[in-house]
């Protein structure tokens, strides 16, 4: 469908488009983050059972949700990249993986810091925690595989295949608390009934989820531009860009 577009112009246009979109994502991220975190930490009421330790929810849940959203994005990009051989899609996979890995790490770490005072243990090998740990390993595997090849076209394809293989982990993570006996509690807001969280606690949580989502978008665009520059560094448009920056 994009055959008429010159292949080199395509990369250059994507770079410019990503650059145009980036500030919008940042504009959405910063206020929702600031309001959400201040509201969540200082203004939301303490939980009736967990007291103030429940405030860890404001990073734990957004990070965990967006770690999975990042993976879904990667999986779609990997599928498109493999079937239609869109190189840009494979670059998006490589750009997203490190962000997803960081989000997953945050979800695991904050979960541990929350589990210790509430459950009585930093870590339990229950199905939810284990499948989330596997997600981190899958992310690291994708990053390692991508960096293992010096031929980036081959690297992108390998990373995309591994991404698709790892997709089966997503439903396992989500439904682990339903399918098995776990120490981790069930879903609070992503269930079909009304969320089981008080409104004045829910609003800052939704804001934090929103800011984690837009920040994810921002970082994907930023790192996608890095991938483009890296791969096209011998093309005229990158050279022109570098020269313009040197002069400016």
């Amino acid at each position, binding site marked *: 469908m994009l055959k008429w577009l010159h292949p080199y112009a395509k990369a250059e246009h994507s770079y410019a488009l990503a650059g145009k979109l980036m500030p919008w994502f940042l504009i959405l991220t910063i206020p929702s983050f600031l309001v959400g975190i201040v509201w969540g930490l200082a203004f939301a009421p*303490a939980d009736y059972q967990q007291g*103030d330790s429940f405030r860890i929810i404001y*990073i734990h849940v957004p990070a965990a949700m967006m770690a999975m959203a990042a993976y879904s994005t990667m999986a779609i990009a990997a599928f498109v990249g493999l079937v239609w051989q869109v190189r840009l899609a494979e670059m998006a996979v490589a750009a997203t993986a490190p*962000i997803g890995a960081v989000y997953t*790490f945050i979800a695991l770490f904050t979960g541990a810091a929350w589990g210790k005072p509430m459950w009585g243990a930093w870590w339990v090998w229950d199905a939810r925690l284990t499948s989330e740990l596997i997600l981190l390993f899958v992310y690291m595997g994708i990053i390692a595989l991508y960096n293992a090849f010096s031929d980036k076209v081959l690297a992108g394809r390998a990373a995309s295949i591994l991404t698709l293989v790892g997709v089966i982990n997503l439903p396992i993570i989500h439904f682990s608390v339903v399918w098995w006996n776990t120490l981790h509690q069930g879903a609070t807001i992503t269930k079909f009934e009304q969320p089981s969280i008080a409104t004045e606690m829910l609003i800052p949580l939704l804001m934090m989820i929103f800011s984690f989502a837009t920040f994810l978008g921002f*970082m994907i665009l930023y790192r996608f531009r890095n991938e483009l*520059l890296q791969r096209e560094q011998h093309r005229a448009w990158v050279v022109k860009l*570098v020269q313009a920056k040197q002069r400016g």
Partner: protein
Amino acid sequence: MAFTSFSDFLAMGGYSFYVWLAYGVSLLSVITLISHSVLTRKKIFKQVAQRLQREKRIKAANNREHNL
């Protein structure tokens, strides 16, 4: 406001260690991610600039040989 004073806020109802540990490590991870991305971008620009410089020098050297 859920707290009566600033020290009350810092104490987090006795869970200060866990809450601030979670928030601190998360912030650190995000900062690491951002700086890695920014540094990568700078590195690429530097790489390309150095290559251009080198090519320019080689070209200049070739021209001098021709003129001799």
